């Protein structure tokens, strides 16, 4: 179990190796990588900047991760989220889940992403080709995605 917030990029193989090296109790590893898309509402974007709430971010990601371990038999997990200024195609977020069996790994990874999207205090601002910044609106679909897990929220208060 680990969470990291960083400006630097991450390497998928290196992260998965660090998590699973010399272990033979893991049979299934799922990774999710979120990347910066090149367009927003049909218009090209020049860059995306990510702001967060230091302290709360790590606390919230830790709570979400602990909840995933409570619900699924995970052998290991990792959440890495980048902050700062990113370009189209750049990595934003990495979630890794490892379990003896694939369904636990798949479900836990999707759960982590759904909760991260609605609870972790990050905010995206897209800058368009003319240099104008636009804060990204929260998607209703993300709230719906979180709701389908139907649990007591991992942190102490509901929205």
């Amino acid at each position: 179990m680990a969470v990291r917030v960083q400006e630097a990029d991450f390497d998928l193989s290196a992260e998965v190796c660090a998590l699973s090296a010399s272990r033979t109790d893991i049979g299934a590893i799922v990774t999710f990588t979120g990347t910066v898309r090149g367009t927003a509402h049909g218009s090209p974007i020049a860059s995306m900047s990510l702001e967060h709430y230091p302290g709360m971010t790590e606390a919230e990601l830790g709570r979400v991760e602990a909840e995933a371990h409570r619900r699924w038999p995970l052998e290991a997990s990792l959440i890495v989220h980048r902050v700062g200024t990113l370009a189209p195609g750049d990595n934003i977020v990495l979630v890794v889940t490892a379990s003896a069996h694939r369904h636990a790994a798949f479900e836990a990874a999707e759960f982590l992403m759904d909760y991260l999207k609605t609870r972790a205090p990050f905010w995206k601002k897209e800058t368009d080709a003319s240099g104008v910044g636009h804060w990204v609106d929260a998607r209703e679909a993300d709230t719906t995605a979180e709701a389908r897990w139907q649990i007591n929220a991992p942190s102490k208060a509901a929205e």
Partner: protein
Amino acid sequence: MTAGHGTPLKILYFAWVREKTGRASEDVVVPQGIETVGDLVAWLKARGPEFEAAFARSDVIRAAVDQTHVKPTSLITGAREVAFFPPVTGG
């Protein structure tokens, strides 16, 4: 005891709430009678037009007390920091 008895409370603002208030954080001494997050928002709005503008769409503003998500009706009693921000958009 409420947060108001002379103890400074740290307020943080993120994303467009930060841009509209013109500050990332500040330490305030909250008067007596301000007991919930909603009370605090009402009090902040009265401090000037930039706060009025920042909290105009108060239905979309989220709050955290001591780094945990809370509702507008949650108490701020004993809190060290309160943060205000739009719905999160990470991931």
